């Protein structure tokens, strides 16, 4: 099927895309696969099947999922406030959102660890008031990932919310819908695909996050050790094979999860006639 476009150039742009993605993403990642072939399947199972590795996978995925869920909820509210209401200091707040993008993650990790450790400002309070330990537990990882993930949700939801036609809300209201119904039946379904994207991005970022996590996690094997850290540990022990296998497994698992989220998104868009 040939369609005529105003701007021609399917071949060169696709070519460039393929070459670029190959150089930057595919070739580096494929060395991972090649490297892992040096191990037998038994060796592979031995590495992946070990308690410590399985525990680290659980920690990584669970904390990332929890963090991404919390981030999505609050990120949506932040985006809502930024788009809907004028208030003094809005630009300042807006700039603040992007800070986690720019800040070296290690700095974030150290700062968070400092305030959440048992004698830090928040840490002491939480310990005394709720008997809650944050730093050096999986909860600490969640805190770090929330910090890292916020801009992903806010920045994906914000433009969609901005584009949202508010007369749809007025229409719903004039038809007798309550405020909650206007939100749940009209606003939210239109924002949901973008929110899902934000969720996926912050989730993906969470799984790969290393810098900020290791300072606050405590890195206790079986409890608060994340997969990226385990990979580094293996590398430091010159166990390249083991590191590669874990990395590859994580790659595949992450890819599958993101793919699943993409499918879900497609389904949502289909259902709401946006494709």
């Amino acid at each position: 099927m040939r369609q005529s476009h105003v701007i021609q150039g399917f071949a060169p742009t696709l070519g460039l895309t393929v070459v670029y993605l190959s150089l930057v993403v595919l070739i580096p990642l494929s060395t991972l696969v090649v490297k892992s072939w040096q191990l037998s399947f038994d060796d592979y199972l031995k590495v992946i099947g070990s308690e410590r590795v399985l525990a680290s996978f659980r920690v990584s995925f669970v904390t990332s999922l929890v963090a991404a869920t919390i981030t999505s909820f609050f990120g949506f509210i932040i985006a809502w406030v930024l788009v809907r209401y004028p208030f003094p200091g809005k630009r300042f707040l807006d700039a603040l959102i992007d800070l986690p993008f720019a800040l070296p993650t290690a700095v974030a990790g150290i700062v968070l660890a400092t305030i959440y450790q048992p004698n830090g400002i928040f840490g002491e309070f939480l310990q005394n008031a709720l008997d809650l330990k944050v730093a050096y537990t999986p909860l600490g990882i969640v805190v770090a990932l929330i910090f890292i993930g916020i801009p992903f949700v806010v920045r994906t939801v914000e433009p969609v919310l901005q584009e949202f036609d508010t007369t749809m809300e007025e229409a719903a209201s004039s038809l007798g819908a309550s405020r909650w119904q206007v939100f749940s039946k009209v606003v939210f379904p239109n924002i949901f695909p973008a929110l899902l994207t934000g969720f996926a991005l912050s989730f993906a970022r969470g799984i790969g996050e290393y810098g900020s996590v290791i300072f606050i996690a405590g890195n206790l094997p079986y409890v608060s050790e994340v997969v990226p850290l385990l990979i580094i540990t293996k590398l430091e022990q010159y166990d390249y094979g083991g590191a590669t296998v874990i990395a590859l497994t994580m790659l595949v698992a992450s890819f599958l999860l993101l793919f699943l989220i993409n499918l879900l998104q497609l389904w949502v868009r289909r259902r709401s006639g946006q494709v």
Partner: protein
Amino acid sequence: MSILLKQISKKFGQFSALQDINLEIPEGELVALLGPSGCGKTTLLRIIAGLESADSGQVQLNGQDITHQHVSNRGIGFVFQHYALFRHMTVFDNVAFGLRVKPKKQRPDEATIAKKVHALLDLVQLDWLHDRFPDQLSGGQRQRIALARALAVEPSILLLDEPFGALDASVRKDLRLWLRHLHQELHVTSIFVTHDQEEAMEVASQVVVLNHGKIEQQGIPSDIYDHPVSEFVSRFIGQTNVFHVEKEDSQWLEHGGIIFDDPQGLVAHVRPHDIQIEKAETVEQSPIILKDWQHLGATIRLELSKIAGSENIVYAQMPNEQFKNLNLTKGDHVLLQIKQAHWFN
């Protein structure tokens, strides 16, 4: 239901959008709020709907004060200028929305809803599109779906904001007549906003002319056309020739047979069809010539000007047939006769 507005005023910052509006709309009318853009007509409609609140004044529906009632409790149907259809819902779900959000006790069951929605879609002649999404419809179709959606909740009044504004000319013409017929069928008190005087005259049973946040005139279309109360209304409704008596424009009027023993105002407005034309026998008989003319379908519009003096162009209009009989060509000298003029100060 009847609508009564008492001393409605509204300001946006320093700008006074509406000043002291008093308006009564009897039950069953189809009213046009007509005015140039920025005259406050949409604001007034939104205040009636409850989408905007007035700074002062009262809105009554059937004698009941609803000034402080939320839009969702007013039982009105509102059709938005750009339709505001729910993009994520099918046509069916859009129309069913108002029924589905009703409190549990009043909510009909799905079968009743389906029946009602299909009946409404039949009414707007679009039932075959029930499973499409709004983005897949044309402008005229969206407009009719928006109307069906508003009608689903059986509103006591129907409010339409520039209902035909975003449609192309031929669709607009059809929809206008269709709306008028629909109103005759349903008899729900309706108000629509428009800046198009032709549309107001064609569709409405009553026209309210607004300017600068004030009501200039209210009445049936023919009254407003035949007896404009102000210069603004006369200019805004239909075409008109404006003559300033104190300037040399008076010569036109004198040529047209209006004698100034007792001028009734400073400005005379003459409709193009109130000017009668005759071919002058000789050049000396009249200083007025036919400059150009345009074919407007059933009528011909003539551009008249004087050989010397003001560069004013005066428009006259007459049926095709009559123009043919006069046998005029460009540059011919003509005699005018003004049959009727509206005087303003």
